[in-house]
């Protein structure tokens, strides 16, 4: 059942269009992540779901009810802000109880609900403290606790982990994932961090310039990106792109040329007959983690610039035909800068895009 429905949502600030028509729906209990570079409109979109920003055009419904012009409180959503937005003059208990007091819940129920949320988040010992006496991670927990107590229909998270240090961020990420599993709640989460998106999401909405680039599960986005933007955004380090020229089209295969290719050319199987002709530019995408060293049938001939030892793996920055190519290989190969590398890749891991950056797919 569709629980959250956005229908051609638009947002204009004066003449400037920030969200240019976004449609998407989420199921009950789904964890949806909005991801994109800064300025893509992801936070604005979240705030429109919350009701903190007016919707310029389109409709928004939650649990089957049109809430496009509904007051924020009546939407029964809660939000965890990037800044946490804890009330500084209230204790942790009062911060969490504030929303319950607004709906005039009896005091014993308020207490029960706050204590329950505090137990889930392990902040029972902090209930009497003021926010300024808390660490960043503790404030984050209180902010999440404040949204839990109200039993909202949808949890909204606006880059909740961006103010935490790296270790704490990983820890809180796991806790948010657990929370989602335990509460079974619908969550919409905004981040610019693709790792957070990949690890937390049931489905990811990739946004750019106020438009949806692709919606799909993390695996779909990784395996079948719709375009070079999504392909480059999902995955770390980002995908390598080489702009090759089509030398010949032969039934089910394409012959491509680029100076980085071993022998200057590469033949790939692709049933794009009719859509590609000789002389066209094709963008070839290869993920750093799919490239292998010392291949029997090398696909790329590269020269090493710098290698970074990450302990368990090594990141290699190389150049091929003037283009930078990054590899991530297991172990610690002993290589020197300037070394020539014969790099291979499984044919199924080669991504093809047209000159405009759209994925070239078999017609499925």
């Amino acid at each position: 059942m569709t629980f959250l429905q956005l229908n051609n949502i638009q947002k204009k600030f004066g003449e400037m269009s920030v969200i240019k028509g976004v449609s998407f729906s989420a199921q009950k209990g789904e964890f949806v992540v909005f991801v994109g570079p800064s300025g893509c409109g992801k936070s604005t979109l979240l705030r429109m779901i919350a009701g903190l920003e007016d919707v310029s055009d389109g409709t928004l419904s939650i649990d089957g009810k049109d809430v496009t012009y509904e007051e924020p409180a009546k939407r029964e959503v809660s939000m965890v802000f990037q800044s946490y937005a804890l009330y500084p003059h209230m204790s942790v208990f009062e911060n969490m109880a504030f929303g319950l007091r607004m709906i005039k819940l009896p005091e014993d129920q308020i207490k029960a609900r706050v204590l329950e949320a505090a137990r889930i988040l392990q902040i029972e010992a902090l209930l009497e403290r003021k926010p300024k006496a808390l660490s960043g991670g503790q404030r984050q927990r209180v902010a999440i606790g404040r949204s839990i107590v109200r039993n909202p229909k949808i949890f909204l998270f606006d880059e909740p982990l961006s103010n935490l240090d790296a270790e704490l961020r990983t820890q809180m990420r796991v806790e948010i994932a657990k929370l989602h599993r335990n509460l079974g709640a619908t969550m919409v989460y905004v981040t610019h961090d693709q790792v957070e998106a990949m690890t937390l999401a049931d489905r990811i909405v990739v946004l750019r310039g106020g438009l949806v680039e692709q919606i799909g599960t993390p695996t779909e986005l990784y395996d079948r990106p719709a375009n070079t933007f999504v392909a480059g955004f999902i995955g770390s380090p980002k995908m390598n792109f080489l702009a090759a020229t089509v030398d010949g089209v032969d039934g089910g295969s394409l012959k491509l040329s680029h100076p980085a290719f071993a022998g200057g050319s590469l033949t790939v199987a692709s049933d794009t007959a009719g859509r590609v002709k000789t002389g066209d530019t094709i963008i070839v995408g290869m993920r750093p983690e799919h490239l292998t060293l010392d291949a029997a049938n090398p696909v790329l001939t590269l020269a090493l610039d710098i290698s970074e030892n990450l302990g368990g793996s090594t990141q290699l920055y190389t150049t091929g035909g003037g283009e930078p190519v990054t590899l991530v290989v297991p172990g610690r190969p002993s290589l020197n800068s300037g070394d020539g590398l014969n790099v291979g890749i499984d044919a199924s891991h080669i991504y093809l895009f047209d000159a405009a950056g759209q994925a070239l797919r078999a017609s499925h």
Partner: protein
Amino acid sequence: MRLSSSTLLHALGLAAVVAFSLFPFYWMVAASFKTQADILASPPVWLFTPTLDNYRAVFSDSKVFGAVGNSLLIASATTVLAVLLGAPAAFALARYDFRGKSDLWFWFISNRMMSPIVLALPVYILALQTGLLDTHLVLILVYLTFNLPIVVWICTDQFKSIPPDLEQAARLDGADQFTIFRKIYLPLGAPGIAVSAIFSFIFSWNELLYALVLTRRNVQTAPVVATSFMSGYELPWGKIMATGTVIVLPVTIFALIVSRHMVRGLTMGATK
């Protein structure tokens, strides 16, 4: 701990400023305990036998008590009204966009640019025609017109410094505008409200020009009474200084009480 020369200079500079601003107070308080002869002595007498005669004269003068009562009533009423009206106005100016907002804002600020004496005559005529002359109300109204802009000004600034996320969090929590104002902005804006209340109270307490112009016998305020001792050929400095001390005392106590609010860094820890 060794004092560096810059710290020392800093301390000396501060001491000079403090001495400069406190000396008139010392002079006033000291003179209030002196006899007329000691006060007029030249060179000034630094060591003298204190006398309470001046205070006896002040407290036996029923005019002084009445005047302090008048001042207290007028300054308190003005301050309470200025804060009650000013703080919500400041909330609106700080958080909402509406037509004419910048004009209104300019009007509030430009209000303070005019010299009060420019309006003295028109206000006098207005008061005369409305029959408000020599009433508490007329001074409260006049002081309100001077104090409201200050309260609005200071509070708007204070409210603007409160992160908007807090208001939005409260909206999502189901708080209406008035609740947000009362539960979030008032407590967090307390330092600014306290400062503006002090300004408002002290201004109203000390104001002399309009109090002289608009009152006769019934509603004389403390500063008016203090100056009224300078009459005819008599200049009872001791009594004037004792009255001055009595006038300054309540505001000093008031300022000490509210100053605690000013130094509390309430917005700390609200957001990262």
